[in-house]
């Protein structure tokens, strides 16, 4: 940058090259570190979701459990001598320890493992009894010996081990059978309505069919705005931009009344058909793109007698794939995300729900089970595809935002 030359007269002390480099490396490092810290904080909820979705459903609600997916450590004793023991008691009159002659054994039992201060992780064989003075008897499995410690196991924390489970996903996927509260019970749905698999299927149909119409109509309208001059065009374009700013509530109720009157409520049609009439965002994005294409090609084709439709199909569209793919992706994930419209049009029809409503339904009906891990697994199912596609096509998404945002 030219700025370095400018700095010299301002700065009083000329620095050596090495110290300047060191200074630059230091500021680079600290700025990057600050950004990394903020960024980690920013995406921490997402990391929580991953951790919770793979965590054991009882671990996650146990106080003192680790934050990563884990289960309580256990130890199964197989060695008969190692896990045989005698209990005892303190004789009150003499104050001496009296051993109970009966041999106790825990062979084959799963023993809980505790973090014993000063000893590491030990498996609990016999618990402390304050009334008899019986200490805790532990098995130190690494040293193959028994250890007696006078502590109460209640005061100890359990030992945990890293453990990933997929159970939450099967709980979420199979939850349709488990609905016992909420607005609807499983039986009133006529048994199993398919749960998440059904929601995904519905979403793909609604989003897929809607995307076709949204993209084609936006291409056509954007071509009209970009390539023809006619009276009123600029006013209409302002109206188009204005519809972006128009609060949806103003049209929502009459639309509902109309769709209800023609019997479309309780079907997917209100979620699909309106998108066949070009959305302002998509038109804007495509028009901006079309305007950047050189006109010479269309002019040449026009002189050769090509109709505007042919020009659109064979000249404009082949040059515009980046923008068209952006619109395809935008609409697909808009439909994936759409909440209010399916909420009002599909009330009481869970078998028609797309994923956004389905996930909310899952959350409201399943939350009573106090199993955040299963709910996070449901959230993960709903967001994984949009997030993966975003990472694969991040430039498309981020450029689209800037085009429709800045150029107005």
């Amino acid at each position: 940058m030219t700025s370095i030359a400018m700095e010299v007269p301002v700065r009083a002390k000329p620095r050596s090259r090495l110290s300047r480099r060191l200074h630059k490396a230091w500021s680079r490092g600290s700025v990057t570190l600050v950004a990394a810290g903020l960024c980690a904080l920013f995406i921490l909820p997402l990391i929580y979701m991953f951790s919770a979705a793979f965590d054991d459903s009882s671990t996650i609600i146990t106080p003192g459990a680790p934050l990563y997916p884990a289960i309580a450590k256990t130890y199964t004793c197989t060695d008969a001598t190692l896990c045989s023991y005698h209990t005892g008691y303190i004789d009150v009159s003499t104050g001496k320890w009296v051993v109970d002659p009966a041999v106790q054994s825990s062979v084959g039992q799963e023993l809980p493992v505790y973090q014993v201060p000063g000893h590491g992780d030990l498996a609990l064989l016999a618990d402390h009894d304050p009334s008899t003075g019986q200490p805790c008897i532990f098995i130190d499995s690494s040293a193959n010996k028994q250890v007696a410690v006078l502590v109460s196991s209640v005061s100890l924390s359990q030992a945990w081990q890293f453990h990933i489970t997929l159970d939450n996903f099967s709980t979420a996927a199979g939850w349709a059978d488990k609905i016992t509260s909420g607005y609807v019970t499983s039986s009133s749905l006529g048994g199993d309505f398919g749960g998440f698999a059904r929601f995904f299927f519905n979403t793909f149909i609604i989003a897929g069919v809607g995307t076709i119409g949204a993209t084609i109509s936006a291409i056509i309208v954007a071509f009209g705005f970009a390539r023809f001059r006619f009276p009123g065009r600029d006013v209409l374009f302002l109206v188009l931009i204005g519809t972006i700013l128009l609060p949806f509530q103003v049209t929502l109720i009459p639309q509902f009344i109309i769709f209800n009157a023609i019997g479309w409520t309780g079907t997917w049609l209100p979620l699909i058909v309106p998108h066949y009439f070009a959305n302002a965002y998509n038109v804007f994005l495509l028009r901006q793109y079309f305007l950047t294409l050189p006109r010479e090609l269309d002019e040449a084709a026009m002189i050769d007698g090509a109709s505007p439709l042919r020009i659109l199909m064979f000249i404009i569209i082949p040059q515009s794939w980046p923008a068209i793919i952006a619109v395809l992706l935008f609409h697909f994930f808009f439909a994936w995300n759409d909440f209010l419209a399916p909420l009002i049009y599909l009330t009481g029809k869970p078998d028609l729900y797309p994923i956004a409503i389905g996930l909310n339904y899952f959350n409201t009906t399943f939350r009573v089970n106090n199993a955040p891990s299963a709910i996070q697994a449901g959230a993960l199912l709903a967001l994984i595809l949009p997030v993966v596609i975003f990472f694969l096509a991040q430039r498309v998404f981020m450029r689209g935002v800037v085009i429709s945002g800045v150029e107005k």
Partner: protein
Amino acid sequence: MGFVQDTDIRTSSASPKRKLNMAQRDTAWGFVFLSPWLIGLALFTAIPMIVSFALSFTDFNILSPTHTHFVGLANYQWMLADDLTQQSIFITLKFAILSVPLTIFTALGIALLVNQKLLAGKRVFRTLFFMPVQIPLVASVIVWIDFLNGNTGWLKFLLESVAHALGQLPFLGFMSSFSSPNWFNDDSWALPGLVLIGLWGIGTMMLIFLAGLQSVPTELYEAARVDGAGAWRQFRDVTLPMISPVFFYNLLLLIIGTAQYFTQVYVLAGPLGNPDHQTYVYNLNLYNTAWGSNEMGRGCALAWFMFLIVLAVSVIMFRTSARWVFYAGADR
């Protein structure tokens, strides 16, 4: 930067009569191509708007549409008297006051950060700060509900361990007794919790700020530096005026977005705005009025009232923009 289309090569070579034909043809084709949008505009925007306005003066109820009467301004009078509606207006204003400044300045701050020349891996950071925008809203709210849970959520552990660490320092001993709020079960923390969730949506604004920051000509900074301006003066006297148009745009969209706020709060707090109506925003009230109790006439009145407020705010913003938005030279 507007698009200039005056360089139409046809005008120079064609005869006047042919030009007229071309103009007519252009008009005809133009409207043919615009027709999908024009039909949609009439069917799904213009007619519903008129119907909505008309219905706002009636007692239309979807369950008994034939018993609709003209009620004059009764719906609007109801609105101004109804306790729940008053509550919803109050909560929405409170939410806007908490959320709008925090959101826009966070977006600007992050944009400045990821625009730093010294930052390594800029693209990774931009992508990560934008990414939550791409997460379906319902999923992101559900993630946040459990992330903020007062017993098992990570934020509780994070805040409490930071507070505990601070409590070890001199004079900050009181910090070690800090206990995390139970966000969505606490009347006074539920709305701030929603504001926090809203920060996940800054990505779009950040990118628009970033584009604004990158379009500031470097000569301006150089000139300021020659005049002895430090980093803060450069930011205040060069960056801020130069990005004021994108600031204006972001602020306008944010205010409109706040007026339309619904999905997050519905997923989080249900139609009643739990706890205790503390998150009962305007659109929950609209939803309950129009779909909960089927009072669609009242619902239309609520919708139009909101629309007029948003319109008024936008007009005021545009009118006053000459005073605080700097449009460079002949660009506009």
